[in-house]
């Protein structure tokens, strides 16, 4: 397996506020990696930094053999990184099918097409001409994932895809992950549900307060280690 994504000492700021402190994260070709951590730990900021939504100029984000740090979001997308944004962010005035087609606007070649997405999420077929935002939360999430897949990404980024969804719906959505990986796409998920993350990922990184506090394969990590990395090991640090 070759390295697909590698960040070295990545930092990010919102104005004067530093949100990330030297993050080293890597994803191999075809791998599924999960980022866990509590609210405000910096997981979503990390995704925003590598996709070009917040400036990362002069830093090191190696993706598919080139440094994409400082490139604009649309260029990074064309390089093969597609995002399922937090809150889904479907285009309300577009139908389900039009939302999917927007994803294909960059014309990257690859296995995914409208038919492929409808095979992956058959629930969407009957709704293809409905406005995207008229669907249930789970179906909207399927559209958001499908829209990202339409660009035939090498790396699919999923930000909080299970947030606000019923457990049954989350299970349905996660059954798509192996099928997506079968097409050769690597996946980086941000997930607050540790159990779900452990079940689906090859490796996990735990974020806390803008730093990676733990990483490894799910079976190499104990519950105690994860709890310590997730919540902080001593009370003083928590208070700070």
């Amino acid at each position, binding site marked *: 397996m070759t390295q697909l994504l590698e960040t070295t000492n990545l930092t990010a700021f919102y104005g004067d506020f530093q949100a990330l402190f030297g993050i080293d994260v890597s994803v191999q070709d075809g791998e599924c990696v999960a980022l866990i951590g509590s609210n405000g730990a910096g997981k979503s900021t990390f995704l925003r930094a590598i996709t070009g939504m917040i400036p990362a100029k002069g830093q090191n984000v190696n993706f598919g053999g080139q440094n994409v740090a400082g490139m604009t979001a649309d260029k990074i*997308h064309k390089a093969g990184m597609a995002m399922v944004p937090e809150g889904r*962010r479907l285009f309300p*005035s*577009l139908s389900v099918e039009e939302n999917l*087609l*927007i994803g294909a*606007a960059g014309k990257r070649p690859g296995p995914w097409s409208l038919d492929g997405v409808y095979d992956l999420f058959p629930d969407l077929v009957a709704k293809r001409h409905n406005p995207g935002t008229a669907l249930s939360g789970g179906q909207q999430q399927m559209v958001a994932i499908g829209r990202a897949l339409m660009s035939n990404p090498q790396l699919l980024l999923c930000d909080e895809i299970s947030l606000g969804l019923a457990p049954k719906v989350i299970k349905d959505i996660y059954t798509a992950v192996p099928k997506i990986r079968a097409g050769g796409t690597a996946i980086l998920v941000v997930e607050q549900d540790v159990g779900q993350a452990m079940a689906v990922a090859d490796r996990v990184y735990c974020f806390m307060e803008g730093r990676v506090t733990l990483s490894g394969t799910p079976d190499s990590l104990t519950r105690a280690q994860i709890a310590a990395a997730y919540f902080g090991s001593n009370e003083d640090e928590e208070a700070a």
Partner: protein
Amino acid sequence: MVWINAILQGVLLGGLYALFAAGLSLMFGVMRFINIAHGDFIVTAAYLMVAFVTGWSIHPAVAVVLVLISLTTAGYINQRILLNRVLGKDILPPILVTFGMSIIIQNALLEIFSADSRRLPAGWLETGSITISDAISIGWLPLMMFGAAVAVIGGLQLVFYKTALGRMLRATSDDPEIVPLMGGNNAHIFAVATALASLVVGIAGIFLAMKTNFDPSAGPARLLFAFEAVIIGGLGSLWGTLAGGIILGVAQTLGAQIDAGYQILAGHLVFLALLVVRPRGLFPKM
């Protein structure tokens, strides 16, 4: 009979107002951009047409193509290198910049073409008409303007709802922050929207040049009619803009039927009345 005639002429005049307004409506719809220099762009297109035809003796058909190409190109470049810089959450900077452009354009036109009013001689088109009855006849030029308005708005509607470009424009209108994550380049998409709007501005300018006398300071009044048509129709709705133009046109011709001095006033009064009754316009989309 004279009233029916007035309404009919008003509907046709509404076509011209819809042409004035369509570009404004489009730019506001895609990027919430209010172009105060819109009327001056229309007048610039009219001057360009007159300069090509009477100044350089270019065949009118060729001149039309040249005007439309110039306007579309200039629109793209203007958005890409200037107006994109002031686009943002705050709507005030674009208003200030285009207000400045409006003053610059008016003075430049004054410098180049003098304060004399101009008109594009349109030959038989100026007076030719179809007689329907003793009291009612329809001029070829107003009929052409109305047909052009319907064609332009129908064409824009097709572009917006049936093409990949239109899909991207609507997506950008919904959520410009997310579009780059889907591979769209906002700077380019905004410039394409302005180029399309400028194409319509060119068409409007050519008809303005044939329809009436105009001078370098004619822009702001056109902007006002365009604003009124857009707001009566409802923000973001193209067919609404046509309806708004027609309502404005009919109000003006009916006002003029009562007394020639009431033409413009009647239009403004109807606009104000509609603003009170339906502040969001007739067919609001946003």
